[in-house]
């Protein structure tokens, strides 16, 4: 009996409280099959066992709660790491750069990692906390992104309610394709930038 089967069985028997627990724990960063949980909840809505608005409210508030916990852990742990880093040579510089990066890209990152590139979500909770990203802004982006995530997956589950498992198999690997494309784009952009800043360096390194 797999963990997935046990969790979904629990959601089927205990309903919304079980759904809340699974989603909140996963949002903190424990890998649980939340996509399947939400899509299955959508199919339960179609079967008349759950109500759509209840699933959406419970699902998104669970995710938002889990994200806040991740953010707090990041802020708490981050201040400790920062104190250590500041003592090192160039540490303060690195911290300032990380904070500037978070201030510029934080909102987009938080929003997109809620519903599109979901495997990155727990990491961004931690790093947003660590880099002192303003909590109010984090919360607003989080609420928007998580609600969108829950609505998308629950409605997919409702519309494809006859083939939940097959849909999740497709979605599960599609999300990793999106993560891969994002990471590749960031790497490509970094390589281009670093080549542009140091013209000819790559050539000069070749042995004469």
């Amino acid at each position, binding site marked *: *009996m797999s963990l997935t089967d046990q969790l979904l069985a629990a959601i089927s028997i205990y309903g919304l409280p079980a759904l809340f627990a699974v989603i909140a724990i996963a949002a903190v960063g424990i890998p649980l099959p939340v996509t399947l949980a939400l899509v299955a909840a959508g199919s339960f809505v179609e079967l008349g066992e759950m109500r759509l608005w209840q699933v959406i409210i419970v699902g998104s508030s669970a995710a938002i709660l889990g994200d806040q916990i991740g953010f707090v852990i990041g802020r708490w742990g981050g201040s400790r790491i920062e104190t250590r880093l500041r003592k090192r040579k160039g540490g303060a510089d690195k911290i300032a750069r990380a904070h500037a990066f978070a201030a510029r890209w934080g909102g987009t990152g938080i929003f997109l990692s809620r519903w599109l590139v979901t495997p990155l979500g727990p990491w961004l909770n931690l790093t947003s906390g660590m880099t002192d990203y303003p909590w109010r802004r984090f919360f607003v982006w989080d609420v928007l992104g998580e609600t969108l995530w829950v609505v998308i997956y629950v409605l997919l589950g409702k519309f494809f309610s006859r*083939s939940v498992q097959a*849909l999740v198999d497709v979605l599960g690997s599609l999300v990793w394709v999106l993560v891969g494309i994002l990471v590749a784009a960031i*790497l490509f952009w970094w390589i281009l930038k670093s080549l542009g800043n140091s013209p000819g360096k790559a050539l000069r390194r070749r042995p004469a």
Partner: protein
Amino acid sequence: MMKRLNWKQWTAIAALVLVLLVTGLFAVRTFRRAIYWRMHRDEVIRPWMSLPYVAHSYRVPPQVLYEALNIEHPPRDRRPIRQIAKEHNRPVDEVIGTLNEAIARSRQHPPNGPPSPEKSP
């Protein structure tokens, strides 16, 4: 400094190639799963599914499944198959096997005339 930068660049290029390869593999997997889904509409019955869900997914009347397992059909049955199996002291796989047979039989000889026309999901 110069050497360090190049080392970083090479690492980034190697990482990019690796990421692209892995992404490609996942893209192929996604595509194959999507094709599989289109070809085989039926879900594989899993222990977490309730009998009403299986009946809904396979478009058979729930009564067919309850009769096959020789159990009562309570009004709002949320019990997953694994719990039903436990309650009746039967292995989960055996219960799933019985359900699959019942579905196959029901499709060959539908209880209420011809099967309802296929609806897109």
